[in-house]
């Protein structure tokens, strides 16, 4: 027996109440639970409530029936514990992180040896050198802007709409951005502290460090765009 749209919505809401807030995590759980409930109703002849409670415990969510009145068993059973779902999310988060890191390093060398990246780095270097003619500060500002622009692009697109912030994949894809946007600032602070009192500070060190940061940051934007496109497409599919 196929579940109605209202019953599927009920299961989706039940997952949200159990703190499965990311839609890209929920979609897999929802499909599994709906398939299992439909199967149990059809082949085992149980009710919707009984089937759902059974599947709920199958995910490792505990339920203690002691002291719960019969008419409250369904409600209590569904919301008393979400330990199984929490474990599911935590494990998925770990594997998404691994997947992103693997994809990042797999494409790192091909990207930094591409002509496109070479041109981008060359343009940034030329503009930095022009700014440097005016003042060291201007040069540093331009060098920093390469990193800041890429990271803010990720943060802007990653946090712009509801679907992106409620997606575990998107959230993990921008998780390093806040750190990377602050890195240039911390590097300047560390540099000034280390070379305090020195008349001719070796600013080239900062330029090299900014260039290195830009390489990693720029490549992470590439991976971010790929993840963004995949999840944007899936979300469109979900909402149409």
């Amino acid at each position, binding site marked *: 027996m*196929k579940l109605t*749209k209202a019953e*599927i919505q009920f299961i989706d809401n039940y997952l949200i109440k159990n703190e499965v807030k990311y839609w890209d995590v929920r*979609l*897999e759980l*929802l*499909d*599994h639970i*709906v*398939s*299992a409930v439909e*199967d149990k109703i059809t082949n085992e002849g149980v009710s919707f409530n009984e089937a759902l409670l059974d*599947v709920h415990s*199958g*995910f*490792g969510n505990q339920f203690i029936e002691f002291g719960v009145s019969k008419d409250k068993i369904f409600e209590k059973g569904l919301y008393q514990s979400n330990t*199984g779902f929490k*474990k*599911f999310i935590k*494990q*998925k988060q770990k*594997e*998404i992180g*691994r*997947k992103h890191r*693997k994809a990042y390093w797999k494409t790192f060398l091909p990207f930094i040896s591409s002509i496109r990246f070479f041109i981008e780095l060359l343009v940034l270097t030329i503009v930095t050198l022009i700014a440097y003619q005016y003042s060291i500060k201007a040069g540093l500002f331009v060098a920093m802007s390469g990193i800041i622009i890429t990271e803010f692009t990720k943060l802007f697109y990653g946090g712009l709409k509801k679907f992106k912030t409620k997606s575990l994949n998107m959230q993990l894809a921008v998780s390093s951005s806040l750190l990377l946007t602050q890195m240039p600032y911390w590097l300047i602070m560390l540099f000034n502290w280390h070379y305090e009192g020195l008349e001719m500070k070796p600013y080239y060190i900062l330029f090299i460090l900014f260039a290195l940061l830009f390489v990693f940051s720029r490549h992470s934007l590439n991976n971010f765009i790929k993840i963004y496109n995949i999840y944007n497409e*899936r979300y469109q*599919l*979900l909402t*149409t």
Partner: protein
Amino acid sequence: MSNSKLYKGSLTTIILKLLNENDKMYGYEITQRVKELTKGELKITEGALYPALHKLEAEGLLDVEVAKVDNRLRKYYKLTETGTKETVNKLEELAEYIKTMQALVNPKLA
């Protein structure tokens, strides 16, 4: 995964083997196929299946395809090229293990 701890170490091989025989499968379908093939002897729990699938996906052995089915999205898993190669290795490994165990448990049959 129910029944025995002995099955746990073979879960990824079971998943890879099933996906090798079918073009693509979704989570619940895998649990039901295993139940059907083993006549109910082996039941893969949700708590064991999904971590294994996500791990295989992260390792690049599985690819994911999402499609809309009956008012919801369904996530299909399929083998990547690396996954297909790994399936052969894993199956050989498992066959070797069974052979070794057979020699230990029942030397006459080995």
